[in-house]
């Protein structure tokens, strides 16, 4: 075996099968270019201070996009994840205000997320409803419930030890970033090394074949809906700890960025293809783009336009590349 094929194998092992590795590689190159361009354009960009500040924001998006990736690979879709993040903060703040210990409150909020995930999963699999509609509906319900519970107000949430999750540092690296990295490593192990992960790829790649092979199609998808909801809850906890407050709709505006990151990262909406590393790099790109443009005094209105253009360019290029090969 020649040297090049060996390094290709190594690469494939790192970034997951199905040719998604190449997409991740292209994204990485694009990310590095972005870093180079912005460090020329703005002297503040490549500072430790700036880098740590964007990493917390990136971590928030990253955590919400984390379990959404395996879910889309398995042929599902979850639009309720950002709403769940909002509700989580609200539940934690209210239960804590009612006198419950903070970590018990967090546990309760995660429990609620599990239930929402189960509802999403059961409706989308056993009842064969379109996941787009199902999770759009739960998103609306969950957002509404958050607003009802708080009366639309932001609840303060300042607890020693708890806020560390959002604001603390370990060796200078923000805790949210470390948490995100841990979640991605765990998901990567799950997708590449376990039977469950293999089933997720199979179920998304060809649900009919998977059923006829006797794979647990519905069970796999439901588990992933639950995981997606839980990753929303983790993001919500981090967000509340970061802000020192629970705002019912704090995470809502990030939903489109989350979905955009998953698609940009090479995960196919048709299912069966994708990798969590692709999503991570895409989150880095979108976060860096935001930050760089802000530093260059581009208004947030133009940032929206730029993000859309980058998305079309990246996905278009990848589509073209795959059709060529």
């Amino acid at each position, binding site marked *: 075996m020649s040297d090049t094929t060996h390094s290709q194998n190594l690469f494939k092992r790192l970034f997951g*099968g*199905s*040719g998604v590795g190449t997409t991740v590689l292209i994204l990485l190159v694009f990310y590095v270019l972005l870093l180079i361009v912005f460090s020329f354009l703005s002297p503040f960009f490549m500072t430790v201070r700036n880098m740590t500040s964007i990493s917390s924001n990136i971590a928030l998006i990253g955590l919400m996009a984390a379990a959404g990736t395996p879910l889309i690979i398995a042929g599902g879709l979850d639009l309720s994840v950002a709403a769940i993040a909002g509700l989580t903060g609200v539940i934690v703040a209210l239960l804590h205000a009612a006198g419950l210990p903070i970590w018990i409150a967090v546990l309760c909020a995660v429990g609620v997320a599990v239930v929402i995930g189960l509802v999403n999963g059961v409706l989308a699999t056993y009842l064969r409803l379109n996941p787009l509609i199902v999770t759009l509906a739960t998103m609306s319900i969950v957002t509404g419930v958050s607003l009802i519970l708080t009366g639309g107000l932001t609840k303060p949430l300042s607890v020693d030890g708890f806020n560390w999750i959002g604001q603390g540092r370990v060796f200078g690296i923000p805790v949210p970033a470390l948490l995100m990295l841990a979640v991605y490593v765990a998901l990567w192990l799950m997708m590449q*090394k*376990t*039977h*469950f992960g*293999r089933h997720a*790829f*199979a179920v998304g*790649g*060809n649900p*009919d*074949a*998977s*059923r*006829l*092979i*006797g*794979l*647990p199609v519905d069970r796999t998808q439901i588990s992933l809906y639950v995981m997606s909801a839980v990753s929303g809850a983790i993001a919500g906890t981090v967000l509340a700890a970061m802000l020192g407050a629970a705002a019912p709709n704090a995470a809502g505006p990030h939903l489109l960025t989350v979905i955009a990151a998953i698609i940009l990262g090479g995960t196919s909406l048709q299912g*069966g*293809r994708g990798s969590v590393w692709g999503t991570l790099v895409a989150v880095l790109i979108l976060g860096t783009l935001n930050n760089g443009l802000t530093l260059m005094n581009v208004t947030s209105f133009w940032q929206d336009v730029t993000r859309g253009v980058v998305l079309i360019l990246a996905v278009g290029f990848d589509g073209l590349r795959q059709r060529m090969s």
Partner: protein
Amino acid sequence: MNTTIPRIQMLDIVKSFGTVRVLEGVSLNVMPGEIVALLGSNGAGKSTLMKILTANYTKTSGEIRVNGAVVDFASPRDAARVGITFLPQEISVFPELNIAENICLNAESTGAVNWADIARRARLVLDDLGFGHLAPETLVADLPVAERRIIEIARALESQTDILVMDEPTASLSEQESAQIFTILRRLKERGTSIVYISHYLKEVFEISDRIVVLRDGLNAGEFDPFTAQVTDVVNAMLGKVAGAMFEDRAPLPKEAPVVFSCNNLSLPGEIQDVSFELHAGEILGVFGLIGSGVEVLGRLIFGAKGQPAAGRMTLSGKPYQPVSALKGKEAGIGFVTAERKTDGIMTDMSVRENLVAAFQRDFGSGPFTSPERETAHTLDWIAKLGIKTSGPEQTIRLLSGGNQQKVCVARWLNPKVKMLILEEPTRGVDVGARREIYSHLVDFARSGLAVLVLSSDVEEIAGLSDRSLVIDRGRILAEFNSGATANDLMSASAQPVNQT
């Protein structure tokens, strides 16, 4: 003198898919007002030839003339413009639209819909076909299958079709309904429409066609006049001498083999009625049926992919068995190889290894983790045993030929836990070489103790492969044959008229 020019001339048509040649130089002429029956076994090239005519496929070489002029269509729409319409086996109508809309809908319609006009045009065409009693406002969803087929033909007429290609137009119809279709075809013929009629039903072909053209293995295998030709001559032309060489001599059936599977009065409303049989260890039981006969349902029903049957008692390995789901079927010891590899057989983007171990993946891992090393060893073992042509276990299965994909789909179930293997159309879309190999492997697996149930619409396959065979039609078992039954025996058994429907 115009009438002496054929409506269609296809000359020396060659078609290759990659390295596989499907058509090796086929010629076909159709005169105006002529009904030509196109016959051939599965894989003979009938559908490919017709898809080339209708520009669904591009030809590798050869020439097509319509009314004497050379044509080279870029898309099916170009073919439609010169009046060629293809009616596929599955009836394609819009059930939620009414008859008039279904008939008058075509690619050229633009602007607002003139309801009075389309109703008038629809009535005209229906009158012409002798179905003036159908009201243009009726929703197509409310029509029986046969009348939907008629709507489809009416649509073709409305768009000025003068070359109609039909693939098994009577496959899901009763005999009376088929007779209706024939009446229409005769009317079309009088109007000068040329018809190419693909069918497996020999009886029909002799009844309706003016000329029979037989293809075999991508070549013309003979032309017959239905008024003078003998059925056996046509069948011989279809089957050729290949059958003998396809199937090798095999070890005799084991004496006193235990019953692995039995079913009594198995029924699924509208699809399977009162099916009973026994399957022994070491035996290959073949079920032959034409498309729409229930042959494509029976295997799935037993495996569990159709959910619970309405009625029937079954045993598997001596224990009572009730189909529930594919997962439960697998756990009970049944393996199932589907007819449609692409749609429900393989995970196209996954590797040969991942596809091959998919059914019993947990046997190779430890706890929740997979073991790619052990999977690779297992895959390499089967690649060698079955002669699967692949660059290695990590190759994407999509890049393999149909025959090699099929070997992977079979190997997937070769696990000691599987006592009974059900195969649907085991060699559909598989080239001749791989087909022979698959047959010989299936015999080996059976003789080593597996019970094998093969369901197929390929009559030679069932005749050559089975130790015992059943013939199914309209969901019922019509006949049982012991080893040595010929394709002719099976085919004529399936063509018996049914008294009760």
